[in-house]
């Protein structure tokens, strides 16, 4: 039966204004498209590496993606700390969304890294490499976050347990980051040392742009997903309270 809307039509119910959530989604989509185009252009402009050839260009998005994954997990832990500190439940959703973004970028880090490893080392994965294994441990730890979270009924208890879990995980970030620098023998390249970036000016510039692009994409994805989850939650609460 059709209804209510046709019985009492109003201009806003026929063609309503674009909701803020969809505007945010459009903005996020635009930033993703523009960012990826910029990165694609960079990959064409930056000169090839003398040793590894063109496959070395994976570096310009593999490392920024890994840093964005760390940022997602770090932001999730920060929001978790705020939740435990301020007892404000909105941080729970923010922490969960940030960790979700970190996990998406974690998958991309593992896949792009594996492709680069095959191209330059001839191996998809090396268990002897601390950097690889520690990142995998970090990634699996945060995959388990979702299992822990969704095994508990929604409420204050779930918020607290999820927050404490994500705070434990963040300890692995510096361990993962510094593992390669502490290892005596490693095949994984160390681009940033105490002497600065080990690359030419144009390569460093391209890397910085790649990092900026991935950070903007990651943040846009975080904002869009958070806006959607908030709206969804509000609608559920409205329905439950009717």
């Amino acid at each position, binding site marked *: 039966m059709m*209804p*209510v*809307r046709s*019985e*009492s039509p109003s201009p806003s*119910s026929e063609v309503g204004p674009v*909701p803020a*959530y*969809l505007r945010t*989604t459009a903005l*996020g*989509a635009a930033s*993703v498209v523009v960012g*990826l185009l910029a*990165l*694609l252009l960079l*990959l064409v402009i930056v000169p090839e590496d003398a040793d*590894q*050839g*063109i*496959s070395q*260009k*994976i570096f310009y*998005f*593999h490392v920024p*993606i890994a840093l964005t994954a760390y940022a997602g997990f770090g932001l999730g832990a920060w929001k978790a700390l705020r939740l435990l500190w301020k007892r404000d439940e909105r941080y729970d959703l923010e922490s969960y969304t940030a960790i979700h973004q970190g996990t*998406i970028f974690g*998958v*991309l880090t593992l*896949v*792009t890294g594996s*492709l*680069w490893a*095959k*191209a330059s080392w001839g191996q998809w994965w090396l268990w002897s490499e601390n950097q690889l294994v520690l990142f995998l441990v970090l990634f699996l730890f945060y995959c388990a976050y979702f299992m822990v979270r969704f095994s508990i009924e929604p409420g204050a208890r779930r918020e607290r347990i999820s927050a404490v879990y994500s705070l434990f995980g963040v300890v692995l970030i510096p361990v993962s980051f510094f593992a390669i620098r502490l290892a005596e023998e490693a095949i994984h390249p160390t681009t940033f040392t105490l002497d600065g970036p080990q690359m030419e000016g144009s390569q460093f510039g391209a890397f910085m742009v790649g990092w900026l692009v991935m950070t903007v*994409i990651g943040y846009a*994805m975080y904002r*869009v*997903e958070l806006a*959607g989850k908030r*709206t*969804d939650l509000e*609608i559920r609460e*409205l*329905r439950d309270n*009717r």
Partner: protein
Amino acid sequence: VSQTGYLVTAFAVVVAVILAWLAIILAKAARIRRDGAGLEVEHGHSADG
């Protein structure tokens, strides 16, 4: 697989994963909008009637 093949595959994976995420988000947005419109209609109905 050539060196270029690895580079193109890695970039394509990144684009594909982001597009898949975007598709899921847009599908959820459509559902949220439907739910919100449904609530609005029900509220309007009870208010009118």
